[in-house]
């Protein structure tokens, strides 16, 4: 319809020379628009035309799509199994557990009922469950105290291990042992069974009180007994033994961070150090201006990894409480709510740390 109108205006423009230039320009614009519209229509039909407007037969076969789109299809095929698995074994359970945290859930053998209750569970864990808030604050604060220590201590260890010296492989091998032993049930079992008695408890007791009460037993590295003999004030003794306990725990969690750091340090090209040596940089300057900026990404990785480890490790108080609720009391709705609160908080912390770190440090180092 419109096209016809355009032709009309053009004829008018040609017919009466008295009409102004404006009309002519208008008509030209309308013509352009019409052309564009046609092109758009052609594109929509996905038919390829040559410059004369004839249809090119070869380009309209279905398989001629170009290597890039073909490649992207292959890429999708590679990740297809993962997508299916993630949907079945991750997304669905995740939302189910979120749903349960808003429900009252009753598990009978062979059956399961869930009744929607709104935020009742969340209200319960915050208002009536005395332990939860306490545990939550303890867990979160232990996050902030132990995370920087682990990140820094493991960096120092990795720097030492990265140097060239005899027996380097041996020490590296030793530093990976905690990864094998400590990730499992072994450590929990050891601490539990030696509780109040043996040697290991003094090193890995969860709190200062435990370590302090365990003092006086005989075998192994008995720090507390040693400290007691020094006749220091009791508070100081407790603090010191707590610190020693923390050293043990920290070094045992440093296994994988050290491995990650070493991997990162190996990627720094040696030419940089050579150049800095020629320029006369000290070791300290080398560390600040070459090593640290070059492993910026690795530090981020270590931070995130450490947070995840701390989040999911078995002796985290909240996880422990939720897990005993789940297993022993079959009280899944409360434990789901607890875990979700904890996870939401920790997730935000991780997100914030990544954001701040990449804004402040990585940008500046690049």
């Amino acid at each position, binding site marked *: 319809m419109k096209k016809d109108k355009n032709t009309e205006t053009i004829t008018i423009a040609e017919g009466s020379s008295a009409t102004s230039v404006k009309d002519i320009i208008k008509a030209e614009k309308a013509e352009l628009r019409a052309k564009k519209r046609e092109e758009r229509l052609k594109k929509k039909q996905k038919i390829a035309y040559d410059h004369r407007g004839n249809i090119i037969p070869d380009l309209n076969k279905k398989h001629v799509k170009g290597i890039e789109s073909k490649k992207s299809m292959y*890429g*999708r095929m590679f990740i297809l199994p*993962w997508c299916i*698995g993630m949907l079945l074994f991750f997304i669905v*359970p995740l939302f189910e557990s979120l749903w349960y945290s808003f429900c009252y859930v009753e598990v009978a053998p062979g059956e399961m009922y869930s009744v929607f209750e709104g935020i009742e569970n969340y209200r319960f864990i915050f208002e009536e469950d005395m332990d939860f808030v306490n545990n939550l604050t303890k867990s979160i604060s232990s996050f902030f105290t132990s995370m920087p220590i682990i990140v820094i201590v493991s960096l120092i260890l990795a720097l*030492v291990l990265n140097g060239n010296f005899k027996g380097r492989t041996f020490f590296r091998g030793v530093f990976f042992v905690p990864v094998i*032993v400590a990730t499992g049930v072994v450590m929990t079992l050891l601490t539990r069974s030696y509780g109040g*008695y043996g040697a290991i408890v003094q090193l890995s007791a969860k709190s200062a009180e435990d370590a302090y009460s365990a003092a006086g037993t*005989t075998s192994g*590295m008995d720090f507390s007994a040693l400290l007691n003999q020094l006749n220091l004030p009791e508070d100081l003794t407790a603090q010191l033994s707590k610190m020693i306990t923390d050293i043990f725990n920290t070094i045992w969690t440093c296994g994988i961070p050290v491995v990650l750091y070493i991997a990162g340090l190996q990627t720094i090209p040696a030419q940089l150090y050579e150049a800095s040596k020629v320029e006369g940089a000290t070791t300290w300057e080398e560390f600040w201006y070459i090593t640290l900026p070059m492993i910026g990404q690795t530090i981020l990785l270590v931070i995130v990894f450490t947070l995840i480890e701390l989040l999911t490790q078995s002796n985290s108080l909240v996880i422990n409480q939720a897990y005993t609720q789940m297993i022993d009391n079959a009280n899944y709705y409360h434990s789901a709510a607890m875990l979700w609160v904890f996870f939401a908080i920790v997730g935000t912390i991780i997100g914030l740390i990544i954001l701040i770190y990449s804004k402040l440090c990585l940008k500046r180092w690049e």
Partner: protein
Amino acid sequence: MTSFLKTKVKDKFPDLNRHKLKDYIGKWILSAFRLVFLISISYIILYPLFAMFSFSIMSKSDIMDTSVTWITKSPTFENFKIAWEALDYPTSLLNTLLIGGISALLEIFSCAVAAYGFSRFQFKGRGLLFALVLFTAIVPVQILVIPLFLNFRYFDVLGIIGLINTITQNPDPVYLDLIDTPFTFWLPSLFGVGLRSGLFIFIYRQFFMGLPKELEEASWIDGCGPFMTFVRVVIPSSGVVFLTVSIFAIIWHWNEYYQSVIFFTNTFPLSVRLSNALTIFETLGYRNEGAPPLVSAACLLFILPVLIMYLFMQKKFIQSIDRVGIVG
């Protein structure tokens, strides 16, 4: 000491002067410090292992004896015998190998496939999906355990079995019950969402991105499809990362406890057995003072296979970590 030092120094630097001597001594002191530092930290790390070894061969009288700290006066292997029986060692070792070993193997390959898709091909939504990969690494297993249990108890893919049940009007609906079978671990591993798969996909992707593209392009031109390229070109040239991931996968599957304790009701793997061991020892009458030697023996039995594997592969593994370059 000094004479020894002098001869050594003279061997190293024939044209010795005072400055060089100072330098050399400084380096020597530094390395001595380093050695002391590393040895003390190694002691902290190895301490529980040593304690386990020494406790595990102690008899009851040694525990009571206050003069015994490290070395027992009357070594016995009784503890190992009791622990062996309490763990039901051969059966549960086989279970662990069957469950953990096979799912680690599946995971190694499925994660590599997914990571190759993420690292080499451009497609819509790649960034979002990869963010999801990282998200799977962050979510703690404990959140997912109960829904997963229910999913496996009434296993059903896309409601097909439920549909059959409704069509046949079965009064007693039939479901696949996968609980207490290794499929609870095999299936997620097969699809690359098993134990810590997110981390593995991340490590693989980081490595594949660093591989030179030319090899793959050459094989494309020679007529290999993308899958054959992956099998014939990419896998052979990335043995390093496969070694790293397989060690991690095996160790983590070996130590896996949280899911196993829920998914397995009869065929227990070692880790679940071990966690029950303490109560078994208590019912056998080994309380308080009697328990540590037994627990040490049980723990040693548990970590021994992995420890041996690690000792054999240690050198290669550490070299491979140097070369993988897992960088953020």
